[in-house]
């Protein structure tokens, strides 16, 4: 269902939205003749007709775009701060992860495995969507620094997960883990015989 708000104003969009998403209540700013349309889908159609018919604009609607005159210093700081939040996010999770690691113990059972999987999966996911995060950080002046911090944080997170796997014995680091792949040695001599019959 196409939203009529695309060419209409804010109020129309609210009303149109009310058509698709059912709301408990709706504020009708335009005093339209809506009462005769009880069915929501029909009502929106009626709206469109009415908005196309006469130039009835809602209160506070301005045809001309308002020029953004003030990009203020405070906002810039805010962006910077927000970007640092994003960059430091993985690092901040590490103490939490450490605590979870400590709590879950080294036994191999369903909960610790789930924890480890989550711990390992989150940094990997973050590293996969690295470019998207960098785009987010584009607006910041310290973009590169933040990027590196973000990267390091995620790497640390995955290192932690690997460490956890290691302490749980899930990594094939011992010779015993490769025992099953050792082929039986080939026999060089053929020997036989026995007691004299």
């Amino acid at each position: 269902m196409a939203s009529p708000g695309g060419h209409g104003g804010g109020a129309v969009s609210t009303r149109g939205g009310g058509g698709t998403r059912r709301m408990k209540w709706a504020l009708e700013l335009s005093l339209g003749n809506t009462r005769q349309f009880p069915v929501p889908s029909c009502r929106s159609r009626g709206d469109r007709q009415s908005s196309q018919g006469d130039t009835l604009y809602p209160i506070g609607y301005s045809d001309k775009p308002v020029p953004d005159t003030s990009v203020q210093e405070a906002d810039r700081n805010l962006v910077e701060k927000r970007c640092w939040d994003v960059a430091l996010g993985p690092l901040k999770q590490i103490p939490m992860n450490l605590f979870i690691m400590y709590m879950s113990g080294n036994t191999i059972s369903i909960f610790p495995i789930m924890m480890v999987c989550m711990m390992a999966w989150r940094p990997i996911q973050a590293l996969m969507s690295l470019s998207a995060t960098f785009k987010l950080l584009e607006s910041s002046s310290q973009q590169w620094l933040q990027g590196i911090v973000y990267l390091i944080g995620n790497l640390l997170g995955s290192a932690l997960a690997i460490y956890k796997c290691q302490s749980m014995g899930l990594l094939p680091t011992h010779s015993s883990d490769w025992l099953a792949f050792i082929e039986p040695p080939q026999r060089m001599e053929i020997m036989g015989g026995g007691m004299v019959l």
Partner: protein
Amino acid sequence: MANLRTCLAFLFLCCSLCDAVYEDQVGKFDWRQQYVGKVLFAHFESHSQASKKLILATDKNIVASLNPRTGDLFWRQVDKAGPEGHIDTLLFHGQVTGNGRLLRSWESSVGALNWEMLLDPGSFLAAVLVGTQDSVKFVAVLKKATVSLHYLSNGHQKWTETLPDSDTVHYQAVYSSGGSQLFVLGVVPHSHLSIITFNIEDGEITSQRSVDAPWLSSIQARCTVVGQGVLICADASTLSLYMLPLSSEEPVGLQQVPLQSLDLDLALGFQPVLLTTQPNPARPPLAQFFLQLGPDHHVLLQLSDGHLSPLRDFQPAFLVSFATTGEKTVAAVLSPKNETVSSKEGVKRSFSEQSNQGSLITILFERKPDLYSADSGRRLLDTTVTIHLDPNGGKPEKLYVHAFLKKDDSVGYRVLVQTEDHTITFLQQPGRIVWTREEALADVVTMEMVDLPLTGTQAELEGEFGKKAAGLAGYGLAAMVLKRLSSQLILLQAWIAHLWKLFYDARKPRSQVKNEVTIETLARDEFNLQKMMVMVTASGKLFGIDSKSGMVLWKHYLRNVQPNAVFKLMVQRTTAHFPHPPQCTLLIKDKETGLAALHVFNPIFGKKSHVTPPTLSRPVLQSLLLPLMDQDYSKVLLLIDDEYKVTAFPSTKNVLQQLQEMASAIYFFLVDASQGKLSGFRLRKDLSTELIWEVVIPPEVQKIVAVKGKRANEHVHSQGRVMGDRSVLYKYLNPNLLAVVTESVDTHQERSFVGVFLIDGVTGRIIHEAVQRKARGPIHLVHSENWVVYEYWNAKSRRNEFSVLELFEGTELYNSTVFSSLDRPHLPQVLQQSYIFPSSISTMEATLTEKGITSRHLLVGLPSGAILSLPKMFLDPRRPEMATEQSREENLIPYAPEMPIRTEWFINYNQSVTRVRGIYTAPSGLESTCLVVAYGLDIFQTRVYPSKQFDVLKDDYDYVLISSVLFGLFFATMISKRLAQVKLLNRAWR
């Protein structure tokens, strides 16, 4: 502490092992067959019409009773094996049987022991039932120097008397005819005959006389008592019979009757055998008797008024027998059917020729025992039974006849024929075989299990890629596609037929569905669980038995096999090489001459192969089956003779060329136990050998008891063991390792010992030696993977002990790609531990699986007849004294000196295998499953799952529940999806 340890061990057991068979699994995968051995004495019990029985005593020291209708065992009493339990004679009167050293009476209906009497020492000679006034009351037992009389009812001794001059006179026979006298006959060889008469009531010697008989050397079989107490002896040198009335008071000499006067012609080398019958011990024997004149010539003679007269001449007649029912006595004569051959020599010659050829035998072996009235020698009407003897069987050896009175007062009879190959066949009058028992199977010497061949359709598919493909390649792609399509079609057809059969059988009641196994329908099953058991028996008869049902599918009797021959069975070609037939080779070595012969046969059909084995002119010492194959895919068998020269079989050019290339890598070892010498040889290119090492174990101190290498078809999956700290302890897997067990010659309790040597068979290097002091045999040994388990008797503590040796290479592998005994600088680490076992054992073997992933169990045959499946886990020298974190990680059970025997470990539950002598294990197509055959007096076959059935769904797997849950969930999803759609739509309309 000990308590805690046992507790821990117990916990371990509880959680780790539970092998027992469930009640509904009984007989599902296993079967047992019971045998009695070669029949020595047989009697028919026919007193009561309701319970007919056949009472047997055999060379395996068994008294048994068979059901004459089915041939099944009613009961069986097994005495001690060996000469100690030997049955000297079996007397049958209602319920009595006698036994050599002991006199025992058995209840014939249930086989219970009535009484038992220990006889005086002295070698047993004869026993006879003694009757007075028409009732049998006593048993007379003749020993070397005494004669004693026992009550039949309770075994108590009535009297015992010493025999006069027992050092010079050989007393050999005892005779009574219902009067008050008991005659004991003795002979001084080539001098005179001594006859002593005892009074039955008090044992007093009433008369004693001696008769000159310088021609007589032995009474047994040469002399017999006929009619009213007339002793008749046959003499081969003078070709005459001698008669002597026993009871006459006046001293008369032996009356000579030349055989010529009876118009009997004699063969050269005349060995007379007299056969008489005494239907009732309380009455004198019949006046008619048989005299054997030649191997196929018998004559029925009659004694009347002191005159001998021939009643009837039977020629050819191989076996004769008497049978009595009521007042009538009949004589049965077994003669070959084609009576066209007239001359005696002709029969003999053709007989021996035929028996060697083996193909035309059927006609000649058709025998018909005719029934003749013993009184007149007249032939009874319609009494011929034609026996079709198996052309693969032996000649008839003994004949037991059971005669009975029919309703019209004529005499009917049944015959029990025993042949050379220990088969007993029971026949009814029209010639119908009622049952056959293969008693040769009571003495299995060696066996192998061979895979069954693929079915025709499977073979068809295989063939496409084999030889046929080569021929078809010329026709191009289209032909190949057509060929493939047609074979797939055949497969589809077979599958549909199979489905149809399943459907058809499902409607029939369960009991009617019987899968008849015949040799034609034999085919490998999905998991290769059904195999052909090829069994070699001591009598020289080979059997092919279906391992699933226990049915004998083929049998082949090897004539000319000496009773003490040594057998070695080898599978040269398996069924995997279609279209070449599988091939087994049996090496038969005669102990006395040392000469050996090879019998090459197809293990599936039992037929002799067309391949001609090499003739072996020199005594063969050992054989070796190489993994080399000739172009026909049969493995090469090397035979080493007493000049240490090697004969190859097959010896085609291809094989000889391969042998030349491989010669320097082929080694032999020979163990001469009498000289205590172990020697190693290497093959030269010209098929001679050179001695490369020799180890002498002084035979005056200790003797070599057993030498065991590893089994050739054994696979070891894991090359090491994982330790608690997750490092690896690598196994020392030397394929050339031999375990040699010695026992001390000195058997004194304090000085006896058992030695175990681990010797490399290629280099002769002694890898390890262990000595168990104050220990004695018999020693049972299993050598597998990197361990050796042996069992011995601890003479000091008076108990049986198990000891295990395990060899490890350490935490580093010396060479992980190849194993060469010539390049092994480091000796392995050897660990050893011993345990107390609460029972003695009869035999021991380890389980074997396809890939060696499954854990191993030891199968221990106990003298009680049980077969114990003992996890190898319990025999692990790394079991710690104290359980630590690491040992727990490794699943090591803390050491406990006592080895438990848990009844759940008995794989044969209550199906005891009497006198188990060997256990054979074979891998199946399933990694979890190992096929087991235990043989001894009985044969038992089953499957074992040492690590449980990890690759198969369980028997009681709930298919219905699982599938119903699956379907339920599927439909629930469908329905709920539909419901959700409807609900969404409704919501949209609101």
